[in-house]
């Protein structure tokens, strides 16, 4: 394992950094898109609601790899040339945002209906009520499932390897097939993933405790 690190450590590190950056970007955008779509799913506007539901149903039910391959293979033929890394980030963002939207929708619906009525009754608009009253309460409900989505996002980024996405798994595959040291390589890869996911898990647990302490 030491020998593996000294020869291929640079490759693994490059993959690790790429995975980390891709995860952060995908997490940021999937949070924004997912929250918006989740809010639209409970909106009164039938058109917006239908569109949001269609988005969620579509991407919730297609394998991530298929979405990523679409952006890697089909998208460049008709729209713009993007590489495997970019295709992976776009696919991962879209895929994860559907799960986050479902989580956010469930969180909003978990806030009692009386809260919306109370907000409206004091002169807030629908969106203001969402912002000041519903969403702050929904956050508490969604933090634990959202944490799971974040962890899944990091792990799911391993599909980048299938489209030459230069991520941790991609380099892991290269090293394993070059050295035939399958066990050692993938153990190293697993450890690198844990470097991202374990702190993330602890951070989400911390956030959960902090929010729970408030009331």
């Amino acid at each position, binding site marked *: 394992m030491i020998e593996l690190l000294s020869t291929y450590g640079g490759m693994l590190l490059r993959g690790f950094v790429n995975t980390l950056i891709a995860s952060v970007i995908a997490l940021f955008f999937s949070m924004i898109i997912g929250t918006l779509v989740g809010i639209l799913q409970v909106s009164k506007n039938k058109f917006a609601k239908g569109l949001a539901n269609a988005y969620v149903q579509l991407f919730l039910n297609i394998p991530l790899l298929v979405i990523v391959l679409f952006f890697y293979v089909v998208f460049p033929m008709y729209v713009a040339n993007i590489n495997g890394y970019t295709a992976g980030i776009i696919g991962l963002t879209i895929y994860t945002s559907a799960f986050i939207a479902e989580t956010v929708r469930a969180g909003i619906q978990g806030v009692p209906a009386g809260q919306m*009525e109370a907000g*409206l009754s*004091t002169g807030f608009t629908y969106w*203001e009520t969402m912002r000041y009253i519903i969403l702050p309460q929904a956050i508490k409900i969604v933090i634990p499932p959202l944490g799971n989505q974040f962890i899944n996002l990091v792990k799911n980024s391993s599909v980048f390897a299938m489209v030459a996405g230069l991520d941790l798994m991609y380099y892991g595959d290269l090293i394993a097939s070059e050295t035939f040291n399958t066990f050692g390589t993938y153990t190293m890869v697993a450890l690198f993933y844990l470097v991202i996911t374990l702190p993330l898990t602890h951070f989400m647990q911390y956030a959960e405790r902090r929010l729970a302490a408030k009331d």
Partner: protein
Amino acid sequence: MIEFKNVNKYYGDYHALKNINLSFKKGEVAVVIGPSGSGKSTMLRCINGLEDINDGTLMVNNIDLHANDTNLNSIRKNVGMVFQHFNLYPHMSVIENVTLAPIKVLKQDPEKARQTAEKLLKKVNMLDRKDHYPSQLSGGQQQRVAIARGLAMNPSVLLFDEPTSALDPETIDDVLDVMKKLAREGMTMIVVTHEMGFAREVGDRIIFMAEGQVIEDRDAVEFYENPHDPRAKQFLGKIIHHA
């Protein structure tokens, strides 16, 4: 200031409000009673637009609520509402519950909003709990905070939707005392309740509803002593017997 003219409301096939004609004057305390499913809460919720009407006209402060160009928010700023289940914001302290709308909706200076809120909390005897969270309060205490929250917008009318029916008996009187105090100060109030003591003491009139219709609309004491409609008689007999 509030006027129902031939108002009808349906939930699908269910005719919830049947041809309602009512008007409320400034400074008036009206008590609405009736068996469950009589449409009294629905009528109340129409006044601040939580329910839409299907036909007829409903004027609030000379604005037609059903018209397309009506901005419901501007009406709601002037119509406060107190709910059966209080609906306080659980993630905010008592004082934050009261100051949120004045600061965000009326754009009041936070310091001024806080001073007003403290005055109102004193009025409802909740000033000593201003930094507590709703989950730390009893039902009666929460409801008094909810009244202060409604008053903070300085509304022209305050609507009460069965404000005491979710409360423990020993906390009901604290809430009723606050409501009586408001009534004597000249607040315009429309109260859906079964509290006949309150109705007799401060109510100017009683509106009895059944099956989506207004059956009786008379002076409170007169109604209490001599209800005309047999349904009103029967209903009155039941709630007094229970009280």
